């Protein structure tokens, strides 16, 4: 029974914060896009292609945060059998797949003028492609079973094994000699990026993150309602 009181308390809090994140997201996207496309300067080497960074990099942060959410929820589900954790992992997977697709496509559009190629099999690009396939694999596996708990457990194992890919993505640019540049923001000596470019990047980061929270809450509500429906149909059929 304690699952249910937890569930009610969770959705009370989630529904209370949902409008806040809706407003933040709806406000941050126009402001972020204005700074990204108009207010920020062109790069002295890359010209206006640097503007692709403002949709590419926050999507990459989002893709990583999303996988972290999915992996942690999977661990909680496997250890404590908490049903909400199963739903959280299922909710995060399609969002993460979408974010990763943005990273891959915009990266390709950025690579063509700057590197002279839209794709290379270097460590960073390949590990992000694997991230995309991990998301697709999770979705396929979690939905491949009649019993959603069994599917969730199988998916959770994949999500946890695949979590090894996260540090590989993060440090690939340091460990290997990649075509992809290393991080300009998360450095020990502080960001090496000028404030005029840092501002739109952070604004777009906030916009992506608040949208992620909104979509997570919506999906969790939908999946929870779907689970209740399933329970009621099973109960009705066995009567």
């Amino acid at each position, binding site marked *: *029974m304690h*699952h*249910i009181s937890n*569930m*009610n308390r969770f959705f009370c809090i989630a529904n209370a914060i949902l409008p806040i994140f809706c407003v933040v997201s709806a406000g941050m996207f126009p402001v972020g*896009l204005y700074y990204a*496309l*108009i207010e920020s300067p*062109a790069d002295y080497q890359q*010209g*206006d*292609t640097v*503007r*692709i960074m403002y*949709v*590419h990099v926050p*999507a990459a942060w989002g893709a990583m945060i999303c996988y972290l959410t999915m992996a942690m929820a999977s661990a909680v589900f496997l250890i404590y*059998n908490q*049903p909400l954790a199963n739903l959280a992992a299922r909710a995060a997977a*399609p*969002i993460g797949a*979408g974010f990763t*697709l*943005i990273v891959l*496509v*915009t990266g390709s*559009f*950025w690579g*063509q*003028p700057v590197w002279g190629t839209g794709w290379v099999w270097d460590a960073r690009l390949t590990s992000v492609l694997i991230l995309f396939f991990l998301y697709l694999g999770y979705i396929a596996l979690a939905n491949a079973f009649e*019993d*959603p*708990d069994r599917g969730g457990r199988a998916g959770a194992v994949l999500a946890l094994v695949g979590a090894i890919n996260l540090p590989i993505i993060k440090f690939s640019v340091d460990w290997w000699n990649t075509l992809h540049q290393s991080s300009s923001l998360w450095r020990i000596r502080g960001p090496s990026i000028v404030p005029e470019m840092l501002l739109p990047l952070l604004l777009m980061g906030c916009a*992506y993150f608040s*949208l992620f929270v*909104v*979509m997570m809450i*919506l*999906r969790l*509500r*939908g*999946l*929870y*309602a*779907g*689970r*209740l*429906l399933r*329970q*009621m149909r099973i*109960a*009705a059929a066995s009567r």
Partner: protein
Amino acid sequence: MEYFSMGGYAAYVWPSYGIAMLILVGLLINSWSITRRYEADLICMCQNRSDIEPVSIDITEK
């Protein structure tokens, strides 16, 4: 018009923004429709079956 040419890189910058926004909007609509569909179905089912209180149903599979 000068602005929209993006210093000659319009063919790379605008599609990037277009595709990114398209995917984000698609994800949001998809998230919203899942919620709306299941919650509407649930309300219908609860109205038809007044003997069932949805809150009292445990979602863990036995």
